[in-house]
Each structure stands twice: as C-alpha cells, then as structure tokens.
C-alpha cells in the first residue's frame, strides 16, 4: 500500500465506483477485498479527510477506480467526514468527478438503517447497487434474505458479498459489469436534506421492505449478548476496561524486548563495521555516531509501536472501541468531554496526529475543539523511547508485590498522569471557555462483536509501521545529522582538555538556555536534545546518544542509558519525565491542529498552555525530588 500524496493521473480516467454505507458495515474490508494492495491513501484537497482510492479490474476486463467513503447514516452530513461522503456522492467535491456508480454497502445482519440509506441514495439519480455484505454471518444467524424480492421492491440490483472470503466479491463485480454494460445514465438528483417527516417516511418504507424480504432478523446475536452482559456490566465492564489498558502497557514493555535487543545488536554490529573501516576519523564519527547511532536508537522502538497499534487495531476490529466509549461517557462527561472523544483520545496513545484527525467523528464544534486541545496530552508512542530510556536508566528493575514490574508500573503511572491532566484541562476548558453551553448528545451504535481478520490487521499494522519508518528515514534522519553537526563543529582546538563537544555550537546553545532550565535541573546536554525534539519527540533520545557518545568517548557509546545514569541525578531524570508528559514538543501535531481547527489561535493556545504546564510540572518535580533526596 502506498501512502502517496498525488494520485497518478491515468487512474482518474477510469469510471468511479463509490462505496457508501453505515459505520461498521464492513465497507473497508470490502474495499480491501476488491482492491487488494492496489490502493492509495491521500487527503481530499483542503481538508484532512482520508481519501482511499484503489483500482480493480472486473471479470469483463473493465478497469475501475474504487473510492471508500467515510461511513454515514444519512447524506445529511453532521461532521466533516460525513460532508465528504455527501459531497463526493453528489459530485460537489472540488476537483473530483461524481461517481459513475454507487455501491451501497450493508451489513446483511443489520439491514434496517442501511435500507433507509439505500432509499436515500436512490434519490441522487445515479446508478446504485446494494451489496449485502457479511452474508456468511447473517446466514449463520438464521437470517434469510429474499434478494430477488428485495431488489424488486427496492428497485435496485441487490447482490451478496463476503469480503473476507476468496471469491466473495465475484457477484458484486459481475453486477457492476452488468450495470456498466447497460450504459448507465446519471439522472437528475432529486436529493435535498430530508426533514424529520421525510426521514420517518423513508424509515417506514425500509421497515416495510424488511418485513417483506427478510426473515428472522430481529433477534440479537447471542454471542454479542453474552459478551456484553459482562463487558458492559456497570462495574465489571469498567474493571475489565482498565485491565485491558493495563495489560496493553505491560505488553508494550515485555513482548517487545527480544525484538528490541535484536535490533540493538544489529545496529551495534553496523557501528563496529564502520569503526574498522579505513575511513577518516570525522567521516567515521558521522556514520557511526550521527547516522547509525541516531537512527538506530529510534528504530529500536518499532516493536513497541507495532505492539501498541496491534492492540488498538484488534480492539477496533472486535467492536470493543464503541463499548469503551459507552463505559467512559459519564466519566469523560464529568470532565467536559464527549463519550465519542474516547476513540480519538485512545488513538492519541499511538500518535496525536491520527487522534486529532479522528476528532472528526465528533459532530459538535466545541466538543471537537476541547478534544483536539487535550489530545496531545495523551501519551503518544513517540514519548515511549524517551520514557523507556529514562526509566531503564533510573528505575530499578524490581517487582512490586512479587509480580508487577516496577518499571512497567512507572510507565503506567506516566500514562495515568497524561490521562488525568487531559481530563483536568478539558474540565477547565468546559468551565472557562464554554461556560453555560449544553453539550452535544452522545449517540453511538454498538456493533456486534466480530473476530478480527489477520489480513486487515496486517494491512493496518504495515501502514503504521511504514509511516514510522518513513519518519525515521526522513525527518528524524535529517535531525540526527543536524545534531551531529551542531555537536561536532566547531572542532576543539589543538591541545584541548575538555571533551570535544564542549567547544561545539551545541554547547553554546545549551548554555544560553541554561538560566531558563536550571531550576528544572536540566543541564546543557538536555537543552540541546530538546531543540531537535521539537521536530519529533523521539529524536531527543538519538540526540542524547549523539551528544553523550561524542562527549563521553568509546565506553559510553554502547549504552545511552548507562551514560545518562552517570551524568544525571534522579531528580533531573524525574523532572525530564514530567516535562515530557506535558511539553508541546511536536511540530507535526501543532501543524495538524492548525489545519483541523483552521486557525492559528487554537494552535497557539495548545502550544502555550502545554509549555506552561510542562515548565511548572518539571519545576515542581525537580524541586521536590531534590529536597527529598
């Protein structure tokens, strides 16, 4: 899968087939099944809604462009995501052609709301095919659908599909062929935003179709009912949710270790190769300390990031995320957040950028802004390298109560502080900025549980890993080179007694910041690492490695952690952890906030409130820890 910004020109010449459907109808699985690896992810111009386009060749040899549109219950858009779906369907999107064919994707075991959407899509005046997806599950649950009857009553071709089975999309592709062979003509759209009366009448018509063509569809899925009786239990449900989060963070530490050790060993071996090569000293230093050391110290965290995303994707595919939102709604509501904010905030554990972008599921502008402002407080995966490094160096690897690792516990604590501060800040925003304005209602469908598919997990994990590696290969690499230059030049004079880095530009900059950061216990090496950390938080780790391996000579180069433990006091380490919980150290996140809110003001608000929190937190931590020790 390519995350290419520009879609190749020839693709646009093919007829466009748009996939439209309710949330959780299996639309994306169908899209993956149709297009396989021939898909591209880009953004619609001017907005940050993901545009997923893929190519497919039908049995008749027709090449088509398939567009996966955001899920919706109605073309009456209430959020930016749904506006994209509406405008794309109506052909009102700037620079985008209208679809030649609309495939209305429906969960065959949950047809009622989908049929209403299908009736609404009919009014757009373009050819529509109704695809009954997940037919295998519907059949297993004893749901019988008379597709012929449904097609006659609905006035649309109806096919069944099983996205996750080989050949499961054959019927859909043949029907698409048949439709195009009949030279479909786009009629005039008679769609306009429906009022309550019209929605009601359409739903009644959908209910009539359902009664006529579907048997045995009213029953609740027995498995889902059983699982929900535990997972949505008022007390047990919350306990299990907390347990899941706890296991997730312990796993990030425990499971990743073998892979991390292997990656570390690999980069150490590369460094040794360079060391033995007949090259000039300065070039050796650049390759070994700048490139290999710098990039290696970031890539080593790939296993942890993959494990975290694995959990998030599994929970999402299972259908658990909506349950988590249900369980958390009241707690988050108390803090002034919408229950739907749970999913964007949970995504922010991976990275604030998808988190901020995921706030588009929140319809109300105020609720959305609040969520955007606090999303960067959630502990993103880029903080993991920094946390791991400092915890590994300063927190003893012992066990509490005999079975909980102390290091994992501290990590959990840092996550908890991030969550608590996000709730606290949103509480303040609600009281100060949105005083007296009632909140948006919380309404969310709880889909039936589904077993996640390996294939879709693999595609999702691969996309995330690729994004991280691409960052490591571009921004982070460039920053590492910059740091190496700052730390290496000017070169020390002949007969210098201090380590070489003391004479460098980096030392000058770090010393200049000293008066501001001294009360936090930060030395100039930390100051230097904080600057490139603005580009990407995890860069700070590589920077510290570069700075200390250059200043500390060969013996310190093996392990950055050992070097840190030798140079810093515990109070300094704790203060840096506190700083990292809050600091707005990510230019990319700030850029996304600016884009999503459409204003510099909210970006500025985010930056300064986080900076202030970070300074105060680090100051308090350092002063208290110093006083205690």
């Amino acid at each position, binding site marked *: 899968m390519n995350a290419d910004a520009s879609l190749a020109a020839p693709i646009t010449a093919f007829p466009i087939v748009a996939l439209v459907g309710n949330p959780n109808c299996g639309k994306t699985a169908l899209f993956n099944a149709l297009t396989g690896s021939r898909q591209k992810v880009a953004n619609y111009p001017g907005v940050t809604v993901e545009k997923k386009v893929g190519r497919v060749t039908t049995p008749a040899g027709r090449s088509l462009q398939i567009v996966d549109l955001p899920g919706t*219950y*109605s073309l*009456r858009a*209430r959020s930016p995501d749904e506006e994209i779906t509406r405008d794309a369907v109506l052909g009102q999107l700037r620079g985008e052609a209208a679809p030649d064919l609309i495939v209305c994707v429906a969960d065959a*075991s*949950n*047809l*009622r*709301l989908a049929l*209403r959407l299908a009736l609404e899509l009919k009014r757009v005046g373009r050819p529509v095919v109704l695809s009954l997806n997940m037919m295998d599950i519907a059949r297993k649950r004893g749901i019988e659908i008379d597709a012929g009857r449904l097609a006659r009553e609905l006035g649309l071709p109806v096919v069944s599909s099983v996205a996750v089975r080989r050949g499961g999309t054959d019927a859909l592709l043949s029907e698409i062929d048949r439709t195009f062979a009949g030279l479909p003509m786009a009629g005039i759209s008679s769609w306009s935003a*429906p*009022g*309550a009366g019209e*929605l*009601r009448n359409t*739903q*009644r018509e959908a*209910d009539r179709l359902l009664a006529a063509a579907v048997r045995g*569809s*009213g029953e*609740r899925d027995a498995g*889902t009912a059983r699982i*929900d009786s535990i997972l*949505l*239990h*008022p*007390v047990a*449900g*919350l306990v299990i949710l907390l347990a899941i989060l706890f296991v997730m963070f312990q796993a990030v530490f425990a499971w990743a270790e073998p892979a991390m050790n292997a990656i570390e060993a690999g980069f150490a071996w590369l460094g040794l190769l360079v060391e033995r090569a007949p090259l000039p000293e300065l070039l050796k230093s650049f390759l070994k300390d700048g490139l290999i050391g710098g990039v290696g110290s970031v890539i080593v965290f790939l296993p942890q990031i993959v494990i975290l995303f694995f959990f998030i994707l599994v929970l999402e595919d299972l259908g658990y995320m*909506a349950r988590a*939102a*249900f*369980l958390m*709604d*009241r*707690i988050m509501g108390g803090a002034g957040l919408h*229950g739907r904010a749970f999913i964007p905030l949970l995504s922010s554990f991976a990275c604030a950028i998808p988190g901020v972008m995921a706030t588009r599921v929140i319809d*109300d502008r105020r609720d959305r802004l609040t969520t955007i402002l606090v999303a960067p407080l959630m502990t993103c995966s880029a903080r993991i390298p920094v946390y791991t490094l400092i915890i590994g160096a300063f927190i003893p690897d012992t066990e509490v109560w005999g079975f909980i690792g102390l290091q994992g516990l501290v990590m959990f604590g840092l996550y908890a502080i991030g969550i608590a501060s996000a709730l606290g800040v949103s509480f303040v925003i609600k009281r100060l900025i949105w005083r007296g*304005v*009632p*909140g*948006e*209602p*919380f*309404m*969310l*469908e*709880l*889909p039936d549980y589904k077993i996640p598919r390996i294939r879709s997990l693999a595609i999702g994990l691969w996309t995330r890993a690729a994004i991280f590696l691409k960052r490591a290969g571009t921004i982070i690499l460039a920053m590492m080179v910059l740091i190496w230059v700052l730390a290496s030049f000017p070169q020390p004079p002949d007969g210098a007694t201090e380590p070489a880095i003391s004479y460098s530009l980096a030392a000058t900059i770090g010393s200049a910041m000293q008066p501001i950061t001294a009360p936090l216990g930060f030395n100039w090496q930390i100051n230097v690492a904080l600057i490139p950390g603005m580009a990407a938080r995890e860069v700070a780790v590589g920077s510290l490695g570069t700075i200390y391996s250059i200043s500390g000579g060969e013996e310190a180069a093996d392990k950055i952690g050992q070097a840190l433990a030798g140079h810093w006091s515990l109070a300094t380490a704790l203060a840096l952890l506190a700083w990292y919980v809050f600091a707005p150290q990510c230019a990319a996140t700030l850029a996304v906030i600016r884009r999503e809110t459409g204003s510099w003001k909210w970006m500025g608000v985010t930056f300064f409130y986080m900076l202030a929190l970070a300074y105060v937190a680090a100051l308090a931590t350092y002063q208290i820890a110093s006083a205690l020790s």
Partner: protein
Amino acid sequence: MGFRGWIHALSVGSDSTGLPGAELERRLIELGFVEGARVELLHEGLFGGDPIAVRVAQATIALRRQEAMSIMVNEEAPA
C-alpha cells in the same frame, strides 16, 4: 433493565439537550427510533444509570438518558 415496549412518539419539544428539538428528532430517526419500532433497555452505565444501551429493532444504540427522554414508549404493541 430489560424494559421493553414500542415507540409511540418522539417528543422533542424542549431543548433541554444541546441540540434544537428538530435536529435531535432527525438524529433519533436516523438511528432507527421511529414510531412503531420495538425497543428494549439492555445496559445502563455505572453512574446514575447513564448512558444506556437500547435495542431498537435490530440495532443496539448507546445514548444518554437526557436524549432518551424524548422517546415515548408504550408497553403494548401498536395496533
């Protein structure tokens, strides 16, 4: 819990919620809350029994009590 019935009206007169009544009515209908639909209360949250999860026809919808108050339910099947 376990309360069942049939919707006989949507009554969104007051705007006690964050939405104007007409908009709340449209959103409820889009999630399947129309007159005559069968509903059953499935789950309640820990704090004040809020939010609630409701089975409406063949879908399960989570919503807060405040909004659910607009859905008038009879225990007898509509004629």
